[in-house]
């Protein structure tokens, strides 16, 4: 890796330092409170269909955060996160459809299964770096839909037909629509997961992950068990993505092999890069990007939606090279600097 990657690495480092500062400033606190209040009020302002879309934003936001922990903070590439998303989704669907578990029990199960799957996949992946790891994870993501169609698993997976699940009603006789309830449920899970990620990344563990990303040899010399940390990071990353998959399955009410193609991995990657690499709040912008950019592209031109999508991506990369969150931070920094100058 040459000079270029060093400079992106230092950029990443700056961003990560900004995003996961050990203590939150008053400004950051008020930002979080404002975002949470906005998040709580959102379903009251928009239609059920929009609420459903925002639920998907939260779901993909969690998945992007999962990838961010791996790539943004630990420097490992993955094109295989659609596989973990699929495992989470199928865990939820099978538990609800076959064994009639309540939807909320499926989340811890999906998380644990994906943690183990991610950790196990992370062990051999230790020997692979950069592009080679990307290739190995790519293999994982293209193989997954075929495994899901595998005949001997059909009893549980439903084969090509997939599994349909029933949307949960609001509990305690709450008079809100299913969409609103699911939004709030997802919102709370997301807050919890984001808090855990922040807590994990701000301290010793976070520093170790970043040290491994920036200079693995130095990290090892400092006594960091790189092998263990890297595999564990893979596990935790998969856990996040798996929980997102379970939530996604409940929101969509349907899983099928064709839902989890390689393109989903790419979408999560795109969401992470445009949202902001190595940034926790940027992950939510990543979710917004995943849900709304294709719709925007289709609105621009139906005949050439993917050309419009590509153009939008290039524009984002050109005008916001550090992602949306980086753009917001830089804009804010510039504003305050100017204010101080005058």
């Amino acid at each position, binding site marked *: 890796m040459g000079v270029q990657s060093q400079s992106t690495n230092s950029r990443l480092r700056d961003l990560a330092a900004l995003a996961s500062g050990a203590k939150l400033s008053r400004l950051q606190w008020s930002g979080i409170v404002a975002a949470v209040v906005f998040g709580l009020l959102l379903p009251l*302002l*928009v*239609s*059920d*269909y929009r609420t*459903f*879309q925002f639920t*998907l934003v939260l779901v993909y936001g969690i998945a992007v955060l999962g990838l961010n922990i791996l790539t943004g903070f630990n420097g490992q590439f993955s094109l295989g996160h659609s596989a973990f998303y699929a495992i989470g989704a199928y865990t939820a669907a099978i538990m609800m459809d076959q064994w009639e578990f309540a939807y909320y029990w499926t989340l811890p199960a999906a998380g644990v299964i994906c943690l183990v799957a991610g950790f196990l996949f992370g062990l051999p992946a230790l020997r692979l770096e950069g592009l080679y790891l990307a290739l190995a994870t790519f293999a994982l993501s293209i193989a997954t839909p*075929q495994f899901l*169609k595998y*005949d001997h698993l059909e009893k549980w997976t439903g*084969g*090509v*037909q*997939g599994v*349909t699940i*029933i949307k949960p009603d609001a509990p305690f006789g709450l008079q809100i629509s299913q969409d609103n309830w699911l939004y709030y449920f997802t919102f709370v899970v997301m807050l919890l997961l984001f808090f855990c990620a922040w807590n994990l990344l701000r301290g010793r563990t976070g520093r170790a992950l970043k040290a491994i990303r920036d200079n693995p040899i130095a990290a090892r010399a400092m006594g960091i068990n790189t092998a263990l940390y890297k595999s564990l990071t893979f596990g935790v990353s998969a856990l996040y993505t798996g929980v997102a998959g379970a939530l*996604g399955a409940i929101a*969509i*009410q*349907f*899983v*099928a*092999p*064709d*839902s989890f*193609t390689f*393109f989903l991995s790419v979408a999560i990657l795109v969401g992470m890069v445009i949202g902001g690499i190595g940034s926790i709040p940027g992950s939510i912008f990543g979710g917004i990007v995943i849900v709304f950019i*294709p719709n925007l592209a*289709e609105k621009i031109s*139906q*005949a050439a*939606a*993917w050309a419009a999508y590509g153009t939008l991506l290039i524009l984002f990369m050109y005008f916001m090279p550090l992602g949306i969150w980086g753009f917001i931070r830089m804009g804010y920094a510039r504003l305050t600097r100017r204010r101080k100058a005058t």
Partner: protein
Amino acid sequence: MLNRRNFVVSAAAMAIALAYGPASAAGKYDPGASDTEIKIGNINPYSGPASAYGTIGKAIAAYFKMVNDKGGINGRKINFISVDDSYSPPKTVEQARKLVEQEKVLLIFQSLGTPTNSAIHKYMNAKKVPHLFVATGAGKWGQPKKYPWTMGWQPAYPGEAKIYASYLLDNKPDAKVAILYQNDDYGKDYLNGFLEGLGAKAKSMVIAKEPYEVADPTVDPQIIKLKASGADTFFNITTPKFAAQAIRKVHDLGWQPLHFLNNVSTSVGGVLKPAGLDKSVGLITTQYTKDATDPQWTNDADMKAWHAWMDKYLPDGDKSSSFNVYGYAVAATMEEVLKKAGDNLTRANIMKQAASLKNVKVPLLIPGVTVDTGPNDFYPIECARLAKFDGAKWVGVGDVICPKK
């Protein structure tokens, strides 16, 4: 911003209520229909792995453009809103919800694909929005009791299999049948339909069946086994790549059975050429639409109208593509249902009309093939004619056959 949008939405809603309120005396309307317009939603894979099917969506849009140019249906213009789901089920759910809840369409028509339609099957029925003439051959779209808002259009796979079974019962009752099938829902749909069609005779007639997996590199071993069974009739339930392999192997082994090939793999360019046109002579399949490349229909009135429509509304369209024939015919069926619904454009009445099509002749269907439905019959097209491959093209043979019920 959201507040402003909400204000605009509610203002628009009030305006609509004011504009349409008094008119409801003239016609009965559900969301998506008015005195001047009928909103139809459609979901097609314009991008992604199945984007070849996007042609159908474009053909349907062009058909409704023609309908509108001629003054619409009962004075109402069709507003055809077609969206892309890239053949991805989660996207289909999002798009269906957008069409129903945001665009407020009267119905969703011709959404394409089995996994994609499966994803919205329950949703459409829970919302009680017509989910009409879906573009897939799976057998599960005709369950009026369980899913009264969903209906297919083309002959379903089990129905097509029953046509071959009827033919055998009538013409070759002592046949010894060997079956090769893809081991998934599609293959089993055909297999079960065929066995059901043969009824009590299935046990004695079917002497061998061999499955294969989509992941298998070749079906040669299966063909060798099937030939060894001594069968004189072969039902080939395979997707294009395997169909080509099977056709070639059957020929190379010197096996000469009566060879039925499922409709899925009848593409001359995609299957028969790779298999070898000479090796494909004598294959039998079903046809229910007229083939635009078949000289038999050159002077046919429907075909002439279709050519004129292609020239005017789809000048860049491929006239040899069966998708353009399909899109035209299915859109004509939708037009017929809307015509019959008259001024009662409620969702319930649309389903009622769609489920009471009797002997309806839709353009471009082979003479004798009609659209027939009933409250307990959600399979619009069930009959088809057998066609034989002559080394260059499919040639229709005999009369239209309907599966025995």
